[in-house]
């Protein structure tokens, strides 16, 4: 079942999401990328109602791009997260709300620090050192409580992420088989293999 994790470390944020697209009890696809690069230093994992997720993620991506083009000024992770939160909060109060849960991570270039935001479909937002959505979060959060280190190197961060993935594989009845993992740091966004 749908699961996404994210954690920060020394100068980076790692975001991971499973790659299944399911409908009812059927897996329709096992190579869906649910972590979107919103800009040169911004990543967002999206999960929730199929259809809503992609629609909302693309809406966010294009609005952030438009802001960059119009103002020649890139939104900081905090500003982008605030805008996304407000969009979801406005959507919730409309006739057709999006049901999308997000993990938004980015590297603030002027301040030289990583930031991670946990956002849900109700428009709740919280800046966190690590976070998770979906059934996997019940297993991952306790592990992250125990093993997360904000000053960890990228290798240590990936090792902590692997613990989460392995635990979910071991304990969750319908566990995802594959994950996309992306990192954002001072050099930008890249995908890594775990």
């Amino acid at each position, binding site marked *: 079942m749908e699961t996404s994790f994210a954690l920060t470390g020394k100068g980076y944020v790692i975001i991971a999401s499973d790659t299944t697209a399911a409908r009812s009890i059927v897996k329709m696809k096992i190579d869906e990328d649910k972590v979107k690069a919103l800009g040169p230093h911004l990543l967002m994992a999206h999960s929730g109602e199929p259809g809503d997720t992609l629609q909302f993620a693309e809406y966010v991506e294009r609005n952030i791009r438009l802001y960059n083009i119009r103002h020649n*000024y890139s939104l900081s992770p905090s500003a982008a997260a*605030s805008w996304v939160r407000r969009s979801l909060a406005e959507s919730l109060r409309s006739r057709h709300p999006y049901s999308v849960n997000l993990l938004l991570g980015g590297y603030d270039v002027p301040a030289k620090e990583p930031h991670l935001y946990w956002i849900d479909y109700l428009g709740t937002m919280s800046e966190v050192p690590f976070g998770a959505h979906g059934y996997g979060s019940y297993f991952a959060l306790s592990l992250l409580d125990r093993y997360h280190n904000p000053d960890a190197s990228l290798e240590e961060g990936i090792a902590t992420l692997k613990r989460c993935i392995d635990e979910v594989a071991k304990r969750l009845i319908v566990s995802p088989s594959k994950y996309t993992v992306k990192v954002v740091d001072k050099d930008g966004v890249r995908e890594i293999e775990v």
Partner: protein
Amino acid sequence: MLATANNSLIAGRTTIFSPEGRLYQIEYAMEAISHAGTVLGVLAKDGVVLAAEKKVTGKLLDLTGAKEGGYGGSGEKIFLLNSNVIGGVAGLTADANSLINHARTIAQRHLLTYNEDIPVEILTERLCDMKQGYTQFGGLRPFGVSLLYAGYDPQYEFQLYHSDPSGNYSGWKATCIGANNGTAQSLLKQEYKDDIEVKDAIGLVLRVMSKTMDSTTLGSEKLEFAVLTLDPETKKPKAKIYRPSEIDALLQSEGLKKEDEEMKP
């Protein structure tokens, strides 16, 4: 029919090109500003300095209410637009008040949406979009106001912008608007150094002001003054608009205070 034709003639007058390809209303507005009180800004490495000349003063004008200033110490010509931007205005005060009101609204709306202070250029640009609108749509006259924006944002750090009634804006290291702006600009061109610090910029601004203002006196009744720096503790921008007593103390310490016997109580 005739009435309509007349109306469109009057309404059109503000927005149409002359046969020579000029927009006279905008040029007139700029002309009006070049007689207004001088406003001068200097961008330094660690801050921005603004000074403004108050034109109309007289013994009978009641200034007792102006001692404490408005929001953030705002006076007649220098205003706090947001916690990270100070504005200095030259031109029609009534038009300026309306622009400042808009600027503050724009800044607060940005804060609401993005939970961060508005970047300086975006505020400038948004205000200029409005100024431009008034040069194109029927039945309106342009704002008779030029502004200097002294601000800070984390991406581009300290900045100084100037905007005029046409809606043009540009960034500067040091510039001047209002009366004698030509003299002031050539003085600034001679004396500005690229790595100037705030404490030297304050001196430079006051020296240029004292030379360009064609009055025998120089004191808080004729001058407004503001500095934007970073708070060394919080690393957040700190806008300081000087109060009258602080301006007098500053002029005294720079040795530029010129008293007028007639103005004494």
